[in-house]
């Protein structure tokens, strides 16, 4: 943009000189005394800024101050002295976790791998199933029947994590001398999928079943609810699109490919970004409630590892809050890079972005 003199000067005819226009004078003043103007604006509009205060305080105290506690990963951990006064220890905790060579470092790598595997499986199975469900819902023409199906599939979403994991625990529980095993273990045994010994020992005590139980219970819990957003995108497609495709001789698969898929692609992309964004932020609550010492091999994730090492879980030996904070720091930084990365790719590829 070209700057012209007339933008900020005006001609004084009487004295035949150029002067700074009044508007520009105000602009200059604002520039010179920026913070005074900010103060005046806020004071004049104090009600609006007062409304902002409670929210900012909540986030400051319980989100940002927690992040400040995270700096404990660079300090010598000490349960008495606050983070600000702890001695600086550099990257020693990170070194210990990454290349320590002892059991702690092995456990950390195991936890990191488990975190990736659990969330990657969640993405592979948990993401497409709601889309398929939404396609199926679309086939049901009668509204009443569809409502029944939808209500039934949303139902598990209304349970809390505790109730859901309690049910799962009970359904696959171990047998003992006086009591039988859980009904699902029984069913799997009678179908010949697992042997009696395995079923009787309790599936949740067996590391090779943890991932399947985690994923299947996740699908059971939220597939129906997650399908809502895709279903909303599918019913928004105009019927004329299908008719046009049919006239062109498209069968069902071709309609899916050329009508439905392009129409819901932006929804899929947005949901995928959200999903990738929370990839490493997997539900530690659910893992904590489902795992036990027998299944650490496949079940231990970074959050639960940090939880144990920090000593907040109570029992067992702990390596200190510094180690725990270092583990979470790495997890969270990778998580954040994933969100930003996914968002950037989506913005470039389809002009759809979440943030």
């Amino acid at each position, binding site marked *: 943009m070209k700057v012209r003199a007339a933008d900020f000067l005006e001609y004084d005819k009487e004295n035949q000189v150029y002067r700074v226009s009044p508007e520009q004078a105000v602009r200059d003043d604002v520039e010179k005394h920026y913070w005074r103007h900010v103060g005046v604006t806020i004071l004049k509009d104090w009600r609006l800024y007062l409304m902002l205060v409670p929210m900012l305080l909540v*986030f400051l105290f319980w*989100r940002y101050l927690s992040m400040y506690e995270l700096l404990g990963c660079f300090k010598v951990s000490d349960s008495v002295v606050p983070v600000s006064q702890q001695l600086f220890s550099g990257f020693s905790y990170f070194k210990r976790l990454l290349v320590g060579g002892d059991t702690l470092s092995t456990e950390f790598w195991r936890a990191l791998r488990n975190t990736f595997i659990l969330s990657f499986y969640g993405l592979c199975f948990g993401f497409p199933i709601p889309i398929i469900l939404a396609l199926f819902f679309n086939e049901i023409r009668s509204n009443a029947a569809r409502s029944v*199906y939808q209500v039934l599939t949303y139902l598990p979403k209304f349970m809390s994590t505790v109730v859901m994991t309690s049910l799962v625990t009970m359904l696959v529980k171990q047998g003992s001398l006086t009591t039988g095993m859980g009904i699902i273990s029984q069913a799997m045994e009678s179908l010949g999928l697992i042997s009696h010994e395995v079923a009787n020992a309790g599936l949740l005590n067996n590391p090779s079943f943890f991932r399947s139980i985690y994923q299947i219970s996740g699908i059971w819990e939220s597939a129906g609810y997650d399908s*809502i957003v895709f279903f909303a995108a599918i019913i928004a497609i105009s019927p004329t699109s299908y008719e046009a495709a049919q006239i062109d001789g498209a069968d069902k698969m071709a309609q899916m490919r050329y009508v439905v898929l392009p129409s819901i692609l932006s929804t899929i992309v947005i949901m995928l970004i959200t999903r990738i964004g929370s990839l490493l932020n997997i539900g530690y609550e659910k893992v904590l409630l489902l795992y036990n010492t027998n299944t650490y091999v496949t079940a231990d994730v970074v959050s639960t590892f940090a939880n144990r090492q920090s000593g907040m879980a109570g029992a067992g030996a702990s390596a200190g809050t510094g180690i725990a904070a270092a583990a*979470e720091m790495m997890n969270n930084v990778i998580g954040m890079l994933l969100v930003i990365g996914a968002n950037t790719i989506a913005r470039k590829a389809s002009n759809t972005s979440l*943030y």
Partner: protein
Amino acid sequence: MKRKLEISELIFKIISYTLLTVFALCCLYPFVYAVSASVSGRSAVEYGSIVLFPKDVQFDAFARMFSDNMFWNAYSNTLFLTLYGTLWSMLTAILGAYALSKRRLLFRKFFNFFLVFTMWFSAGIVPQYLNYIATRKVFNAAGIMDDKWLVVIAMGMAAMNIILLRNAFEGVPSEIEEAAIVDGASEFQVLSKVYIPMSKSTIATVALFFAISRWNGYFWARQMISNQNEHPLQVFIRLRLEQYTDPEVIAGWNETFAADSVIYALIVCSIVPILIIYPFIQKYFAKGVNVGGVKE
């Protein structure tokens, strides 16, 4: 040609109905089983002979639970946390979202980033735990000895919900607000008489999200509430599950009903209130996900 089309559609329809029916029944089955197991006789539950319908019906497990004072205590604690927690979260979220929705707000971009950053990067549970411990000390020093208030005030805020509210407020036409200001409405009146009534359904959705996360809250309540009498229902259920699946407890069990029945009864009791209000909240629940698109 036409025939081929119809066949492919028919096949797809059949597959849809079959798989949906199977999936819906799978979703429903655990609940039916829980109800059956909670009212079945001891031997039927312990030998695992119940498949769908109850056997040797008894209601002693329910009676046992209803006569437990801790159960009612836990229920009232959960109601307390849900009610006050939702009110507090809604208050801060509505006020904050309203201010953020105003274009004239200075440093608007910064404040938005301040919120959104917490969605990208969370401190993790250990730093949060240390933070809550520090908060608890401050609260105790200020004379608030009840850990319940710590849970109500410090936890359960979500940036996503504030952004949903902000987007709804941004959608309110500015002409209506201007008309209210001309009529002499103050800032708070504009919010309470114009903005809140005009975005009722988003507010209901967000309130529902807050209420659900409060009702379901388990981990932090268990970590931070030290007094057993203040435990909410979720913590109570988990502690009972740990107790009644303990081999020693089972070995010494001499009641007319199975230990498992008590757990199933507890599960049923925690789901029933939600099932009762489900028809009323369902439309907001379904709406919530559709307004989920975030824009900067």
